[in-house]
């Protein structure tokens, strides 16, 4: 079990190029790289050589778990959306000409996949044959499906569009706020939508009453945001410490955030909330990897600074194994199980 008191055993492997994204699906982890490859890593046999799939011609840009067990979706500069299945097979699902596939997400329960290319996003549902195209005035900066698998949030300039996934047409609900919105997250209860902005700030909306929240004071772009498993905190990057906004008792409005880790160092570039325990893994621009929690729980150092910034992380469903990808192509495999 992962607790701040136990640092875990780290094995570092080199996958060769910038790690664009990390994801987990069942016992399999995957990382997508700047050289267009996707590497599959079996969490049961961390020591085994990863399976390498030549997914894209050009860089991979995004990665997500697919709707069925052990499979992943990656998008790339070659305009392809590729499905990578357990036996390391590769299937091109979509091919667009001259456009990048920049974002992808999927919801297993709803059987829905969504990807975006420029201003357009496409909803591919198990139930319908034809993909549904949804358009925005400016390019999509991030995608997230709500926990229930009913609604999609797509960020763009000046706000977020919320689309009903099951509908075949209709207009989105647009949450407006001036500026460029990038990464997006839903709270576990589905009532809050939070975006990381181009500015060093977060913006949020409470859907039940339309209340806005603006969180600023970051030293760098926030880029990384993750709700803890029960939604008590939103952990964020962009600061030298892991900034955790409280979402209990009416939300973070007017409240100070809790912090942990770091002090006077480089900013946090990746965060991942453990699926079973109230702890958060955080990676820094200098390659440091820590585990901690808001409040007095303390912080454990997993990996000392390597100079190789952490770009992305994923926990396995049991919450006892973690992978962290880096700018230089190293991937840290962290095992918190008792030896």
């Amino acid at each position, binding site marked *: 079990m992962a607790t701040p008191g136990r640092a875990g055993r780290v094995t570092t492997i080199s996958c060769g190029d910038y790690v664009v994204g990390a994801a987990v699906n069942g016992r399999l982890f995957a990382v997508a790289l*700047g050289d267009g490859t996707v590497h599959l890593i079996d969490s049961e046999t961390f020591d085994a050589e990863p399976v390498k799939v030549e997914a894209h*011609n050009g*860089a991979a840009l995004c990665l997500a778990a697919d709707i069925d067990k052990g499979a992943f979706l990656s998008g790339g500069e070659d305009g392809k959306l590729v499905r990578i299945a357990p036996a390391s097979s590769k299937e091109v699902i979509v091919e667009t000409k001259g456009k990048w596939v920049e974002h992808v997400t999927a919801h297993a329960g709803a059987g829905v996949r969504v990807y975006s290319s420029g*201003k357009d996003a496409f909803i591919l549902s198990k139930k319908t044959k034809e993909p549904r195209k949804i358009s925005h005035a*400016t390019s999509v900066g991030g995608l997230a499906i709500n926990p229930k698998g009913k609604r999609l949030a797509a960020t763009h300039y000046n706000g977020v569009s919320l689309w009903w996934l099951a509908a075949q047409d209709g207009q989105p609900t647009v949450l407006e706020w001036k*500026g460029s919105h990038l990464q997006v997250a839903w709270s576990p209860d589905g009532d809050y939508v939070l975006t990381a902005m*181009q500015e060093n700030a977060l913006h949020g909306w409470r859907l039940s009453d339309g209340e806005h929240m603006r969180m600023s004071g970051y030293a760098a772009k926030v880029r990384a945001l993750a709700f803890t498993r029960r939604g008590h905190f939103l952990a964020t990057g962009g600061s030298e410490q892991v900034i955790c906004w409280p979402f209990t008792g009416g939300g973070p409005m007017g409240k100070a955030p809790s912090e942990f880790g770091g002090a006077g160092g480089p900013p946090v570039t990746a965060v991942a909330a453990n699926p079973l325990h109230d702890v958060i893994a955080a990676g820094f621009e200098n390659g440091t990897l820590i585990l901690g929690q808001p409040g007095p729980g303390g912080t454990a150092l997993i990996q000392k600074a390597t100079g190789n910034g952490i770009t992305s992380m994923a926990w396995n469903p049991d919450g006892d194994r973690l992978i962290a990808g880096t700018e230089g192509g190293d991937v840290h495999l962290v095992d918190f199980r008792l030896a």
Partner: protein
Amino acid sequence: MNAQSQIPVTVLTGYLGAGKTTLLNRVLTENHGKKYAVIVNEFGEIGIDNDLVVGADEEVFEMNNGCICCTVRGDLIRIIGSLLKRKDKFDAILVETTGLADPAPVAQTFFTDDDVKRKTKLDSIVTVVDAKHIEQRLADSAEAEEQIAFADIVLLNKTDLVTPEALKKIEARVRALNPFAQIHHTARCDIALDKILDKGAFDLNRALELDPCFLHGHAHDPSHDHSHDHDHHGHEHGHGHHHDHAAPSAIHDEDIRSISLSTDKPLNAAKFDTWINDVLMGMGQDILRTKGILNMAGQDNRYVFQAVHMVSEGQFTGAWPAKDKRRSRLVFIGRKLDEAALTAGFNASIA
């Protein structure tokens, strides 16, 4: 990241039909031993097989709630962010803008976004000008004027379609808009690529390489005389046709102009700093570009200053060459410039 690993970015502007595509095709097809990532505004006419040609929608937005100097190209931030994940795979980035684009948001992107700033450096803004049609363009579009005013390098193209007299007049017109740009004459964008790429126009340490005349204090601007700028009129000097001083031409458009200020007396660095900040904060919306090489009292090194609208940077670079008389020179390019006020402010910074 040090300056060594920053990838140079050249911005290519120019009105529709001026010859940008011709130039881009040359960069993509010529055997220059370098690999470029080219960001174009639309696919179609250029470089079919080059997988590093990326299409961009010119998506401009205002950061920080509408601050004009924070108007940036969000699409470039995204595209460059992704390109940089393919490390060491290309030597430089070329950004083509549409014929109607304002170059400011492109330039400001490279000073505003932290990631872009850390990993790339703006090398220069190259503007291709159609010599045959420029008079008409300047008469009917603000963009053509802005693109020249913003340029570090102007390619006066299609020179074979105009008479030498007309060309001289056009060059004077370009000079009046932009006293510090290097001007090259071409017929079909036939220019050695090292004249337009990797020029370091925004590198304060290299600012002097671009235009030796700038340092010498010879005003390029044939249409504006300044009382304090009294010792160089009528000088001819041997820097080739690029720097010939044309006779004052009739400038009808009051839109964009340039003002050159200079003095032999050393400036007080603190006073200058306060003044230039006030000027850019107050009028930066109308001032497109500012460049200066300044002699600060008590300093052996030259102070080099440059700004795009309100986004400015300045630093002491190398020592004044012994043979050079120390002389401060500052050039503003913009609209509604109050020459009397700028002159008075500049003179008030004299130590």
